[in-house]
């Protein structure tokens, strides 16, 4: 059964790696719903956050192909239950509509929107939340004239993760410790393979 999966990839910072990772999806005609690249908790290590809608079996295979890339250190995939995630959205509406119609102000407040810029002609609001939340504000603002809307990619934190600092030390060691469990996604549950 298809579901939303968030793939977290720890990588070196290298030109061309984005393409190497992206073509693993496009080769299989899989659409990337959301993609974010940012620094991670570990110094010099980048973190890709990719959201796709696929079956677990497909996601697992994709992760193995991603991890096979030379500059990829580690890949994880998680269901929505296993992560905390947010997306940010910006909305541009006419300032008149906000000023004159009391209801708009109430809607914005109800949806936790925050004004970023207020000008004579337009106001920009920002919200942060899940897709349904940011989408809902689009819906309710539409009748009052939404001039522009944009939403960022998902950023996600894995609930069970202890971060990448310790792992990175293992990767840097020429002879990694035997106890280090790697590729836990590769098979049934935990500590299946060591690298």
């Amino acid at each position: 059964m298809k579901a939303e999966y968030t793939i977290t990839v720890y990588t070196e910072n290298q030109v061309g790696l984005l393409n190497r990772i992206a073509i693993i999806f496009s080769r299989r005609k899989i659409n990337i719903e959301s993609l974010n690249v940012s620094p991670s908790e570990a110094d010099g290590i980048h973190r890709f956050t990719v959201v796709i809608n696929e079956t677990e079996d497909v996601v697992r295979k994709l992760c193995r192909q991603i991890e096979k890339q030379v500059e990829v250190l580690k890949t994880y995939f998680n269901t929505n239950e296993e992560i905390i995630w947010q997306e940010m959205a910006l909305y541009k509406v006419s300032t008149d509509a906000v000023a004159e119609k009391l209801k708009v102000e109430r809607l914005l407040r109800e949806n936790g929107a925050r004004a970023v810029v207020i000008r004579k002609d337009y106001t920009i609001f920002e919200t942060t939340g899940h897709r349904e939340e940011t989408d809902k504000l689009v819906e309710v603002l539409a009748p009052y004239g939404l001039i522009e809307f944009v939403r960022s990619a998902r950023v996600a934190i894995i609930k069970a993760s202890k971060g990448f600092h310790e792992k990175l030390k293992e990767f840097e060691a020429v002879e990694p410790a035997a106890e280090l469990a790697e590729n836990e996604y590769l098979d049934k549950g935990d500590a299946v393979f060591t690298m």
Partner: protein
Amino acid sequence: MSTAIETTQNEPKDAPAIIEVEAKELTGSQAVLEAFIAEGVDTIFGYPGGAIMPIYDALYDYNDQLKHILVRHEQGGIHAGQGYARSSGKVGVVFATSGPGATNLVTGLADAMIDSTPLVCVTGQVFAHLLGTDAFQETDVINITTPVTKWNYQITDATEIPSVLAKAFYIAKTGRPGPVLIDITKNAQIQKIEYKGYTKCTHIRSYRPKPIVRKTYVEEAAKLINEAKKPFVLFGQGVILGNAEKEFKAFIEKAGLPSAWTLLGLSALPTDHYLNTGMLGMHGNYGPNVLTNECDVLIAVGMRFDDRVTGRLDKYAKQAKIIHLDIDPAEIDKNVKAAVPVWGDCKETLPMLTRLVEAKQHTDWLAKFNEYKKQEEEQVIQAELHPTSGELTMGEVIHQLNELTNGDAIIVTDVGQHQMVACRYARFNETKSNITSGGLGTMGFALPAAIGAKFGAQHRTVVAVIGDGGFQMTLQELGTIMQTKLNVKILILNNRFLGMVRQWQQLFNDKRYSFVDIQSPDYIMLAKAYGIEGQSVNDRILLQSALKTMLDHDGSYLLEVMVGKENNVFPMVPQGCSVSEIRLK
């Protein structure tokens, strides 16, 4: 005391064994060639052009240390590099210029990628300041080759050359080998750098070529093998790439395991070994295919369950518990779910397994393979190898060739019917003797690959077996043979058709022979134009002496054998069918 500590702290930790040389000034181009020498490269296949001219200029002074083979087309160059890598076990090295030179490498890169062949390709690129300006012969080689390389990298600053090339060789040959492409802009080739020697790469933190083997899985695998009544081994090129032929043989001999090979696993185990039950897959042998669906434990060693091997997946070995030994974790569970995944280098995992398996002989089970073999002999092989009348068959040509080479030759095949026949019937005593384009199925592979194979194993006889279609795709490489005075035997099996497609059209498209009727030039005259001796035979009586003339000839020789026009390759597992539905006719 404190000063002493300070001094040690200033020392780099885990200082790699750098061969300290006095820093000297080198151009980027010279640094490339120094890297090759440090990596033990002796042969380069290439073709010059504008953007790689500085490297070629430097090569002029390295002529005594690096042999450069001028090919006739970059595709020929990279296939030669593949042939070299496959016959020698070393990394193949290829040069090409920017733009069209680089794009001509793509087929070979894809071929090497899918067949796990270690290559380092160096392409020239326009000056860095011209990147993205649609400059003359500029093409985005890095992005074009990303899906077909294990790793690629563009160098715009020559100071990166030593370390990037060290990485390139390390990545190409370790783990599951593959092709690496390094694109070097012209300014970096010219740029002068302070050269401080070359350090081989032994570790990249984001790249683990092989894992520490988990003993639990080896133990589980051994347990399954010891309990098995009908164990069956499938082996692939992993055994050859892992230099584990001896370890493999010891393993199957101790546990008495009938074994069958994939197209690229061929020659890892001698053909006449008592446990060698033959070839797997679409045109493989009868027994190994049928009994795949009868065995109770299936042990896959260094193979990837290609669709040409498995046929219909949902009817593939469903009754069996599958043990999968592979160095590439992405292959485990990719096509066939493994009950026991043994992730690791088979050079390590096989001896671990051998220690744990009980010495056994599955005599009755092995006899079953022989029963099927007998049926196949009667219904297919006899007529193919020993016909007494009618047109010549491809099988009898290979059979006669075996008789003359005693199975000691390297056989390089192209793609199509002749490839299947040659791989089915050729005899091999030694490993690294079968060189063919397996995964990609690249017509035109054999002639240039045979050239490379000969350079990689100069003491061995190299016979390129090629169809009339494939030969016409890369026959310009006859020029390379002419110029290098190489001794390669070219055996064209001419059936005046694109035979494999014709066979499918006959079997599945109602004999609607759509554009498979291909004409050939006079190959003997063509060879003669390149100074290569040759002859054409279509008479059974003359076949053996013609083959002998070819093999005995001092230098390259082209032998064209006119074979049956509409012969088919059997057995065959039709596409979409299960391996047990294999047809004998």
